[in-house]
């Protein structure tokens, strides 16, 4: 079959800085090409160049052919004619991809009418058909709604509907599911597959998530420093990688399945800056297999197999430690739980009033952000608090961190009930409980030197000469002591997160609260921070309360996990017990929605798809909160059994040795 889109030797430069340095690929109709790379690898710029959407300052050379027709240098009028018709695009952020002031039906109809000569009415009918195709319930009604009335997942469906409105030949998806929760991601990926079947289009899937690519793509292109470093069939890339960078990426991602128990192997160092590339292979400074010849010149793409090419001079020596090949999984010996309890939460409740009116605020409702959550955390233990957005995990965390008396229930931190805390005791607990935030960019004061940042907790709690401790801390987290005089902006994301961790450790706390500590980092960097957290815990005897949405990361760090849904705990218990045989239908769906970076297993898995979105926490369902989306409630239970779910809110029952679920009909099921 002839390729529908052919890109050859595409380069993009902004001023003197090259962003893309020679990208070539071709996609055939119906084929899915995954482009994988870390931030700054040039993957998004490549697609913008294909669409002709680069800012005027960019210099583009090379060739992009659509059906054999050259697009680089084509006049704007021709580009406009094919954009949205022959090639369409799905963006990462579904909120900014839709115009807030127009109804979604009109926006899709507009996309139709731009390229087809049809009447307004026909276009609107077509729009409603498209909305139905992408799985929007009651499409005729929803077509009249505005974008802000849709949830993130629904908005992304609308964007996909717009993208396929004109039966395009190529759909470029730029991180289409990155901003979404896992269960919603699974839904949207289903929709994309359906849309592709319907239109027969080729899809270019740009993402950093190797799991998504494993399940979705036919061919994979790995990019590094603006260049493809390995191209091949999805199985070649995952099982027979020939480029050390690909191997490194695969080894550094945490996985939800048993295989994921192995320690992560981070890639040392950081990706090179585009204006200061190393002389030879751009990956050489971070490569474990580097030899002197690597620095001589940049390696071309060698043919290493049928349709498989890799840019490494030692490709035949690269040993894939891909999935399935590494040493047998070492099960974590189920440790006895510690004696001392560092954190105890009982029946925690937090409501937020919904206010209306500009001058006189009146209460029109209540958001039940947290509705009776309880767990405990012992010395030396890590408890992972997981859940999708809106599950109340962040609210729980802030309630604990505020150290204020909760609205209802109790919080006991290090033996002190927050209801009966004096000023001095509170200061004492602040010393023993520290936080690491999600965004390492935002959590460090940009106007302070690293020295001042690390010295702040020390000075606050009365250490007047912090210089020596600061040096210790920097070394502890693997940074150089001479870095103390620099500002946070001089560091990369991973290094900044290390500074954040060092600050949290400054006072030798006993309890560390980690709020999504690695979710803002690239995979190759993530692994290093995860390993650091693991090592620090063992060495300093810390207890972690970890909040995360990435269940793979949680499996790596946590000893116990609590799954939250709509302000309540759905399931709680020992990590391996829950991951191997979850009991709550929500946990089962959540775990089955996580893509595995293993094409064969990923494609043979049965996925439990949840329907619809999270209900509003202002108006939760009666009885069991999960029943509106519960696959078990929908398919397996009899009407009689259902009435219990509708009437009675289940409490967490202990069902195994250390595993409890809040479900009337909990039963074990293997899903990963």
């Amino acid at each position, binding site marked *: 079959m002839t390729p529908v889109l052919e890109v050859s030797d595409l380069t993009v430069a902004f001023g003197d800085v090259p962003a893309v340095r020679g990208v070539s690929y071709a996609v055939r109709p119906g084929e899915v090409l995954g482009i994988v790379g870390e931030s700054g690898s040039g993957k998004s710029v490549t697609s913008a160049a294909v669409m002709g959407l680069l800012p005027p300052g960019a210099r583009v050379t090379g060739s992009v052919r659509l059906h054999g027709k050259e697009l680089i240098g084509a006049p704007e009028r021709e580009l406009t004619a094919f954009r949205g018709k022959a090639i369409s695009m799905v963006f990462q952020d579904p909120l900014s991809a839709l115009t807030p002031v127009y109804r979604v039906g009109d926006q899709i109809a507009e996309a139709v009418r731009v390229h087809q000569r049809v009447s307004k009415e026909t276009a609107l009918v077509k729009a409603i058909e498209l909305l139905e195709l992408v799985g929007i319930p009651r499409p005729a009604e929803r077509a009249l709604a505005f974008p802000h009335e849709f949830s993130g997942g629904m908005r992304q469906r609308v964007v996909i509907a717009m993208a396929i409105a004109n039966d395009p030949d190529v759909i470029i998806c730029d991180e289409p599911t990155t901003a979404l929760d896992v269960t919603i991601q699974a839904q949207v990926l289903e929709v994309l597959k359906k849309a592709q079947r319907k239109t027969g289009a080729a899809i270019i899937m740009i993402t950093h998530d190797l799991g998504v690519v494993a399940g979705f793509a036919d061919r994979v292109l790995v990019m590094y420093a603006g260049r493809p470093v390995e191209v091949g069939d999805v199985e070649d890339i995952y099982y027979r990688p020939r480029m050390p960078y690909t191997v490194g990426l695969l080894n550094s991602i945490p996985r939800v399945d048993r295989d994921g128990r192995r320690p992560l192997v981070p890639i040392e160092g950081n990706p090179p800056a585009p204006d200061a590339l190393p002389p030879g292979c751009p990956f050489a400074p971070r490569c474990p297999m580097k030899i002197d010849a690597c620095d001589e010149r940049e390696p071309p793409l060698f043919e290493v197999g049928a349709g498989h090419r890799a840019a490494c001079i030692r490709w035949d020596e690269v040993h894939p430690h891909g999935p399935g090949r590494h040493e047998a999984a070492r099960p974590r010996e189920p440790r006895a739980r510690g004696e001392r309890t560092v954190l105890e939460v009982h029946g925690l409740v937090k409501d937020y009033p919904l206010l209306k009116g500009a001058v006189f605020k009146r209460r029109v409702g209540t958001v039940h952000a947290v509705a009776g959550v309880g767990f405990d955390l012992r010395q030396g233990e890590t408890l992972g608090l997981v859940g999708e957005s809106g599950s109340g995990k962040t609210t729980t965390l802030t309630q604990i961190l505020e150290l204020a008396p909760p609205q209802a229930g109790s919080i006991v931190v290090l033996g002190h009930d927050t209801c009966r805390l004096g000023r001095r005791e509170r*200061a004492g607990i602040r010393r023993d409980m520290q936080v690491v935030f999600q965004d390492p960019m935002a959590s460090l004061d940009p106007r302070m030197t690293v020295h001042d940042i690390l010295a*702040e907790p020390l000075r606050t709690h009365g250490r007047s000469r912090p210089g020596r401790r600061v040096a210790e801390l920097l070394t502890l987290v693997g940074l150089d002591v001479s870095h103390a005089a620099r500002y946070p902006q001089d560091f990369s994301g991973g290094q900044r997160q290390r500074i954040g961790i060092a600050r949290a450790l400054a006072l030798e706390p006993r309890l560390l609260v980690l709020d999504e500590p690695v979710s803002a980092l690239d995979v190759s960097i993530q692994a290093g921070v995860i390993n650091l957290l693991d090592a620090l815990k063992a060495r300093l005897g810390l207890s972690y309360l970890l909040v995360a949405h990435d269940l793979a990361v949680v499996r790596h760090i946590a000893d116990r996990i609590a799954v939250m849904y709509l302000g309540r705990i759905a399931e709680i218990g020992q990590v391996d017990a829950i991951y191997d045989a979850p009991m709550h239908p929500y946990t089962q769906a959540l775990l089955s929605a996580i893509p595995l970076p293993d094409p064969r297993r990923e494609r043979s898995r049965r996925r439990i798809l949840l329907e619809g979105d999270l209900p509003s926490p202002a108006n939760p369902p009666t009885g069991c909160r999960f029943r509106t989306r519960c696959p078990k409630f929908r398919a397996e239970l009899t009407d009689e059994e259902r009435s219990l779910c509708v009437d009675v809110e289940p409490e967490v029952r202990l069902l195994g040795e250390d595993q409890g679920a809040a479900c009337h009909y909990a039963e074990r099921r293997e899903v990963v």
Partner: protein
Amino acid sequence: MTLSEEELAEELSDGVMPKAPSRARVVAGRFFRSRQGQVGFAVLALMFLLAFVGPLFNRWTYTDKDFTAFLQPPSSSHWFGTLQTGADVYALTLRGMQKSLVVGLLAALVSTALAAVVGAFAGYFRGWTDRVLSWVTNLLLVLPAFLILAIMSPLFGGAGRWPLFVIMLALFLWMVTSKIVRGMAISLREREFIQAARYMGVPPARIVFRHVIPNLSSLLIVDATLNVSAAILTETSLSYFGFGIQPPDVSFGTLIADGSKTATYAPWTFWFVAGLLVVTVLAVNLVGDALRDAFDPAARR
């Protein structure tokens, strides 16, 4: 990652520790390394030196009158020439500069500091603090500043009362900036590094001074530099109308007001004062720019 390096660090820190690279040190270092900072600081220092040491080298004081030389151009006995009254322009200018430099710089500093503190506290604490402080700000904003200054000006007359004058000037310069600062502080308090400091147990007032105000420093420094000229000019216009600095004492304001009448046929009565005013404001701006860059870690390179 290599935790064994911790021991290494302990060994290392037994030796001589490098000087703690705290913010004050880094900012000062960066300020004096920039060309703008060097020039601005040197010029400003020179101006002060001239204003306070310069008069010692002159035979005439600002109250002396030379009845042998009325409205004479610069000469060896009167370096900047004389006025119609026979007063020595050099002596008068330097005396005026003493007053204007001190009044202008101090009024600017006081007003910007007031704006920063009031705005940051109102924005950071919200609630009652915010309501009370905003009320005071709005009240001062609607009072006709010039009128009040004019009414109160007899109070500033006596010797040694100039600090009161500075405070009054500053009191009417800070409100608008304070409102801007308040708005920025409101958005700043939600930032994670402020949360981090709170959860660390840093007292709220210290968070304001350590995190909120430094993060607004660009705005505040620009504001302060503008306020220097604003304060000098307000003082000038007050003096022009006969309030503020009263004769026989002089300031840049009174000198420029008098000099502008004779500027066309006796330029020396005007241009020396005007020139020094321009140089002063320029130097202050240079210092302000350099300081802003020194505070802002992103301004490097």
